[in-house]
């Protein structure tokens, strides 16, 4: 239908606003962007950047209070705003298709997936019920869903998130649309599942010569691996737009540079590379500064930046909304954020053990129902954590990596005492730690502190920041505190918040600030060990960078040991001295961070590392395919728990026998596998290598 020679999508000077009472807040300002047939364009931005509003405006699906204030959106040779509702419906699903995020809630819970996929074909293709269902099943096959018959009959709650995301992609592609809009399609998925979906999308994009793709995400690495072009958004502005390679090689806007410098690159550690957080915060639509929106946070801001910059054409199909782009390109100006002042902790100093976890198991018993018991069935045992041993050295950081369902959070809760362990011992500074919080002495819980993933849940909304910090200072510090307020002020300053924050309530803080308060609260009693459970996962990348730096800095100052739990291998690899990989409640590999990225890898680690999208568009990365989904901890596979999915599965031995721990003399890494060290080294190539530096990891 779209058969003219211009761009497929032509957004020209688009401004989108939301009515809020009397005011009109502009969520997207003066955005111009073109997408040509068959092209894939990524839109990258942090929360509040306006990327989702832009995508919804393109689809003309804004909420009632949203409105296009100026500018035009042309799809093919037609202006989207001028189309009748009926024409718009022909476009939706037929010409423009959306793959939304959060597949589980994006599908109707009470309709069979086959029906949901068939209705789009019936409507747009006028197919009969039978023909539509046949085509729907064919579309499931195309996205590599095994047994499409079963999928078609299933309801959403019967499938995993990854499978549902495939169904959504199949639905969107079934009418062969000219434009596919993907809105964070992998944001709620595990990294190995994400890798499969990304591979699928990449193959589909390459196979489809005519479908253009608009990929919306906060993840710079995903776009680097997937898109031809990238548009960077900041506070409603499109600040830079370029081909993927040139953009990552030399960004022409200081914000893009800043973002790239915030991402921990897989395989780099805090000892070699600094993360450079962007100072300050992204302004809301009601408080945008005059002139360039990035000016207050920009290292290159000068007087001219007080006038609003146009989208400069920088040649080579690049554009930048920075007055000083020429200087940046010539290399005369450095757009990078300053390197944060911090002492680099010398690695590898072992000064004794802070926390010694020995053979810990946490089993939950699910009791059988009455009819089950009448049939002689017993309850099931959920082995959330199954015989894990960890040693955390004083002043060191141990990273614990695992996907959802791996038991990493349960392990953390067992160490803190929020769930009682079933067996095993914990020694903490040579004290035996009782299983439950109630049985623990004040010494233990003042010296063993925790930071949770979601700071909004962790802070009482009715208690001010000052009070929240004063309590642990007064109750948990071992020495007597004369002036608690002064200590609170010092704590706030140690997490880079001004002492005036003591007067605020959690609601008045941003997500990053709340997490800083949570960190300050955890450090209030001068703990010897800090447990951090996904402390940066809910934060934007620039905020994440500053928090990682903060944790490192506080560790250096206080000598605190940190158990850092995360699903993100790159973050853990950056921050930790040692890394433990957990799968189905058991450790698969324990390694110094520096050695994790060299073979031999435990086959599961290998798959994890192969799944992480890399920031370098030209990096080479080996593909590792895992079979199926992670099994339930209530039906753990026999022998090696990973054998059901292992790409290096040997045969009966993996099913029948527990693997041994394999290691080399003199410490270093050890892994839990039937494949011997030398064999594994021989079989495994390095998983990825970067292009520019030629650096092999």
């Amino acid at each position, binding site marked *: 239908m779209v058969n003219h020679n211009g761009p497929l999508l032509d957004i020209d000077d688009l401004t989108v606003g939301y009515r809020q009472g009397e005011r009109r807040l502009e969520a997207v300002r003066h955005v111009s962007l073109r997408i040509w047939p068959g092209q894939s364009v990524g839109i990258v931005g942090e929360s509040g950047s306006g990327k989702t509003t832009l995508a919804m405006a393109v689809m003309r699906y804004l909420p009632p209070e949203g409105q296009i204030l100026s500018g035009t959106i042309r799809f093919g040779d037609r202006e989207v705003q001028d189309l009748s509702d009926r024409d718009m419906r022909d476009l939706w699903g037929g010409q423009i298709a*959306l793959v939304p995020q959060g597949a589980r809630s*994006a*599908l109707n819970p*009470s*309709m069979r997936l086959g029906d949901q996929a068939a*209705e789009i074909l019936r*409507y747009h293709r006028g197919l009969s019920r039978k023909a539509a269902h046949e085509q729907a099943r064919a579309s499931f096959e195309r996205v590599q869903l095994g047994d499409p018959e079963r999928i078609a009959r299933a*309801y959403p*709650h019967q499938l995993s998130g990854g499978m549902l995301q495939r169904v959504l992609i199949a639905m969107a592609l079934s009418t062969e649309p000219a434009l596919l809009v993907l809105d964070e399609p992998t944001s709620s998925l595990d990294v190995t599942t994400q890798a499969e979906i990304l591979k699928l999308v990449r193959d589909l994009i390459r196979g489809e010569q005519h479908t253009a793709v608009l990929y919306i995400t906060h993840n710079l690495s995903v776009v680097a691996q997937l898109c031809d072009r990238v548009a960077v958004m900041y506070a409603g502005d499109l600040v830079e737009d370029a081909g993927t390679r040139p953009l990552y090689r030399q960004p022409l806007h200081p914000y893009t540079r800043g973002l790239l410098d915030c991402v921990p690159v897989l395989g780099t550690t805090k000892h070699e590379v600094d993360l450079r957080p962007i100072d300050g915060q992204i302004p809301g639509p009601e408080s945008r500064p005059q002139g360039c929106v990035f000016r207050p946070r920009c290292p290159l801001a000068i007087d001219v930046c007080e006038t609003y910059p146009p989208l400069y054409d920088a040649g080579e199909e690049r554009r930048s909304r920075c007055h000083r782009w020429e200087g940046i390109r010539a290399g005369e100006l450095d757009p990078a954020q300053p390197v944060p002042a911090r002492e680099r902790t010398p690695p590898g100093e072992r000064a004794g053990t802070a926390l010694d976890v020995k053979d810990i198991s946490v089993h939950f018993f699910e009791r059988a129902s009455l009819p089950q018991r009448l049939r002689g069935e017993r309850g099931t045992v959920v082995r959330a954590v199954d015989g894990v041993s960890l040693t955390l050295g004083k002043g060191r950081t141990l990273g614990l990596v695992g996907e959802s369902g791996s038991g990493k959070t349960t392990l953390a809760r067992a160490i803190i005492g929020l769930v009682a362990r079933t067996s095993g011992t914990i020694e903490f500074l040579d004290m035996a730690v009782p299983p439950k919080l109630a049985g623990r002495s004040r010494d233990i819980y003042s010296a063993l502190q925790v930071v949770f993933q979601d700071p909004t849940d962790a802070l009482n909304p009715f208690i001010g920041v000052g009070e929240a910090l004063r309590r642990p200072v007064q109750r948990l510090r071992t020495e007597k505190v004369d002036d608690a307020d002064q200590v609170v002020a010092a704590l706030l300053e140690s997490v880079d918040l001004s002492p005036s924050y003591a007067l605020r309530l959690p609601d008045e803080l941003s997500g990053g600030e709340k997490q800083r308060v949570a960190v300050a609260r955890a450090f209030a009693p001068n703990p010897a060990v800090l447990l951090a459970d996904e402390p940066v996962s809910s934060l934007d990348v620039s905020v994440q960078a500053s928090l990682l730096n903060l944790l490192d800095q506080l560790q250096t100052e206080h000598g605190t040991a940190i158990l850092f739990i995360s699903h993100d291998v790159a973050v853990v690899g950056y921050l930790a001295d040692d890394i433990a990989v957990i799968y189905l409640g058991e450790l698969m590999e324990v390694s110094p961070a520096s050695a994790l990225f060299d073979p031999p890898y435990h086959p599961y680690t290998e798959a994890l590392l192969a799944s992480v999208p890399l920031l370098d568009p030209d990096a080479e990365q080996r593909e590792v395919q895992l079979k199926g989904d992670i099994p339930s901890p209530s039906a753990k596979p026999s022998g090696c728990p990973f054998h059901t999915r292992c790409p290096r599965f040997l045969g009966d031995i993996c099913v029948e026998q527990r693997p041994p721990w394999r290691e080399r003399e003199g410490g270093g890494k050890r892994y839990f596998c039937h494949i011997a060290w030398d064999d594994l080294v021989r079989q495994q190539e390095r998983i990825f290598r970067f292009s520019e530096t030629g650096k092999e990891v």
Partner: protein
Amino acid sequence: MWRYFLRRLGFLLLTLVVTSIIIFLVTRWLPGDVARVILGREAGEAAVAQVREELGLDDPLPVQYVDWVRGFVVGEWGLSYSTRTEILPLVTQRLRNSLMLAVVTLVLAVPLAVGLGVLAGLNEDRWVDSLISVASLSVVGLPEFVTGLILIQVFAFGFGLFPATSLISPDAGFFEALPSLILPAVTAMLVLLAYIARLVRSGVIEELKQPYVRTAALKGLPYRTVVVRHVLRNALLPAVTVLAISIGWLVSGLIVVENVFNYPGMGRLFIFAVDRRDLPLIQALTMVTVLIFAFANLLADMAYALLNPQIRLGE
């Protein structure tokens, strides 16, 4: 699904056993002697003794209970003390009338309540919504005897469309009785209407916010299809449960409505029995009521499961 059904059925039987014990004990433990309560204060000792004998009141309690339950199950419900007739035909006759009234009420109420609720929900905070909310709430605020009397004034005396009182002969068929059913049914419907319409409305508003609605709309489906096929199926779930449970109230709780229209249903029989201290009749009526509520509940659970695949296909 079967498993779920059997489990619900099990719960239902358990409920029946427990409530029957309560009903039995309450009537036995009423202050004063049961026989005396029945006969009145002036009755002679001999008469009281005879009644005690008839009722088996001198047997131990468990024996009395088992006798009573067995009688109820096999249909030997005994004699009413006030009418001196068999209880079973008396109650079944009234139950039939009440069921007819319930059916007519639901047939009127369901489409109207769902229609109004959906209309209000789709137009949240617009004038249609406000109009429906105000109208339905002001109707529900009026007690049944007021709405009933107004309806009688207008439709019975004014237009002469329907009879003012419901004299239903015992052998009248459903369609013969229908004219007498309309006004009481409308009165009962008005009580349910606002409640169910509001439930449907909030269900629709809640579901419209769900991401799957956007997915459906962006498939390019017509708005009607999105609403009917996607939104309603999920939005009506809470209302279905409430509707099914309300059957219990419609069958045996319409005391005011039945009195206004002189309708020969369960409610009035209840009042009559309590008035005459007719314990065997009260017991029978209470048991029937419990049965109806229990089955209405089962119906609600099953309807919910049928519409919700997560329950239907096992948790």
